[in-house]
């Protein structure tokens, strides 16, 4: 790499969902929690699992598998809730497991491949190839909005 000096890195949290790895910038992550009791909130979208008591703050929980219309699986020992904060919202994402914290070079991020036709593509802001791993970067605004 010739221009290594100007290389910018983005620190991301990597998590697993179905058979893919996703990434969220660490600046938006408030914490990673183990699964806890979720209180169902009636008359909300199916992917809104309900709310939890996050140290005194009532926090809504979104099941990312359901949000992306992936096949639903039972919650395992590895299931985690990643607490995201975006603008003035705090929301928890249920994911299969939270794996890693990585520095990815900004230059390795490419726009999403256009061939992908699944619903999740609209939530993707780009993909990054690190060694043999393919990380899907989430577009948080789109994951959270619109709530329809």
């Amino acid at each position, binding site marked *: 790499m010739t221009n290594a000096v100007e290389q910018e890195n983005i620190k991301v949290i990597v998590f697993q969902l179905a058979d893919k790895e996703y990434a969220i910038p660490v600046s938006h992550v408030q914490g990673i929690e183990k699964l806890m*009791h979720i*209180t169902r909130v009636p008359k909300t979208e199916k992917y809104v699992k*309900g709310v939890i*008591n996050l140290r*005194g*703050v*009532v926090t*809504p929980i979104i099941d990312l598998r359901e949000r992306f219309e992936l096949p639903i699986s039972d919650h395992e020992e590895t299931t985690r809730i990643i607490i995201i904060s975006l603008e003035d919202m*705090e929301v928890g994402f249920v994911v299969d497991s939270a794996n890693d914290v990585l520095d990815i070079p900004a230059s390795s991020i490419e726009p999403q491949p256009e061939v992908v036709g699944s619903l999740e593509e609209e939530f993707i802001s780009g993909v990054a190839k690190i060694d043999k791993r393919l990380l899907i970067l989430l577009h948080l605004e789109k994951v*959270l909005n619109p709530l329809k």
Partner: protein
Amino acid sequence: MEVNQYLEMFIEESKEHLQACSEHLLELEKNPDDLAIVGEIFRSAHTLKGMSATMGFEDLADLTHKMENVLDAIRNEKIHVSPEILDIVFESVDHLEEMVMDIANGGDGKRDVSSTVAQLKRIESGEEAAPEVVATVATEDKQQVSSVLEYDSFEQTVITQSAEQGFNAFEISVSLREDCLLKAARVFMVFEILEKDGDVIKSTPSVEKLEDEQFDQQFYVAFVTKESAEDMQKKLLKVSEVEEVNVATINQIQFSEKQQYEASQEAAATAIATVEAVETTDATTAKPASAKSTAPAKADKSHAPVGNKTIRVNIERLDILMNLFEELVIDRGRLQSISTEVNHGELNETVERMSRVMGDLQTIILTMRMVPVETVFNRFPKMIRQLSRDLNKKINLEIIGAETELDRTVIDEIGDPLVHLIRNSVDHGIENPTARRAKGKPEEGTVVLRAYHSGNYVFIEIEDDGAGINRDKVLSKAISKGIVTHEQSLAMTDNQINELILASGFSTADVISDVSGRGVGLDVVKTTIESLGGNISIESTQDVGSIFSIQLPLTLSIISVMLVEIEKEIYAIPLSSIIETSIIRSSDIMNAHNQKVIDFRGKVVPLVFLEEIFEVPRKELQDDEFHSVVIVRKGEKLAGLVVDSFIGQQEIVLKSLGNYLTNIFAISGATILGNGKVALIVDCNALIK
């Protein structure tokens, strides 16, 4: 200097000082001769100027400085208070407020104030100065002195006798510079000089208080000496940090006269020698000043005991404290259940004691969030003044119960609705003086702003003795706007018609005025108040006046609820909407056009099955013979909420669902239960149509 750290404090304090300025200005308008008030305003302005200069808000400091100059001129009686001058000063305060608001909103506090500054300068340069002040030229010996100090008969005798022995009796007022650091030391130096040349008979405040620095900037001394007034003055001005020294002869005749005058309090007099520190070089050309004996009032005021010591706390910190406390409450719940299981004597006792302490702690944390409504009310006198000028109406504002306390969160929200309602009262309610005279009312209309506690609620009322609501006009307007139909209107009560003005898209003014015609109707007020869990009602009699009454919950953070269970899910129903609970038989349920109803004390009450509304997943169908029903109300209307079972009554801490989940049907919020789980709060208002 790390500015951001202090910015919040600066903004808060600036607001306070500006508020103080406004209040005192209004007072000054009523008593234009009371220079003590000018002093108060000057002090606030001076502090504000210093603060803004330190924080680097030059524009703010600059305008304050100009305003201060005018105040200083008034204080030194170079110019007279007039409505015109007050208008400009009010205008400056308005500008300053805007600037502070701008800074609070992240701006730089810059603002075009050139016209105001020009006017301030014009006033300061004396164009408005009343000529008679300049005209009075004093000659030393003929001076009569209004006595600042009160002398008892013993002191009077001492003064009279020393005069017979050729001593001069002087009353000396010494003003220290505002930035004087060691006031007690300066006092000591002043007294040292005095005692070399004569005897101090009396001082106000007392010597003890002076030594303790319990005085503002000024103190008074009665003094007998053989020296002349000018010499004493020059000597005293040598003491550093002394700003001003006035020496006045105490006239013995005055004692007898004074007694005569005391009843009417009209002791007219003039000071002999007023020399400002900056002009010490020419002490003989003493400047005359009409002393209207307001100084003692000032001295008295400044010695009023300082109120309770307080500390400013960021509301966020209180919220954090509250959250931590709730965590503790949850752990207490767990401890309690453990201790019942273990059944260990000492453990039980400890848990018991802990619960009691936590109860007290909870009360304290909650009361910490309580703020007197005064913080909202105090902006209204100025607003009324401005409104009455804009509209050419005469309005007197009475404020009652400003000390009533409300939760901070409610206080923050209630300001705007009140502004709206008061504007409405002044604009549409109070008639102009001619119309009032024609109706046989006093020309001056009255708006009463009242706050009081009642039960678990705080009531805020805005009452005016104006025109009242014109029923026919309101009705025809509502019908023309399609808010109600003609048929509906026939069945409406007076109050219902009054409340039509709160409907959206409604304005009773024939002409849209600058005051209330800002494109927002009173419906906004209603929405805001209802979102706070409050209620607004209107009483009005035509040509007599109207009362807008707002009912608000004491606090938004803690409410009493009834916890109920529906298939393992726990919901909380606010006690304020519950009338009672009852158990009904299946056979008592009747069908009335597809709606299940029950007969509740002779009233037909519709049933709402919460498990249907909330789509509670059921493992197996239940077919109980008995149903648990919570009878709730919204206004006059009742409904029965059917649940599986009652858990009991509890005080809960209200939590919002956050910004992601907004407008969930029939859910007004959430709370955290003793077991750490979240329970949702049922919004009964949404369930009753």
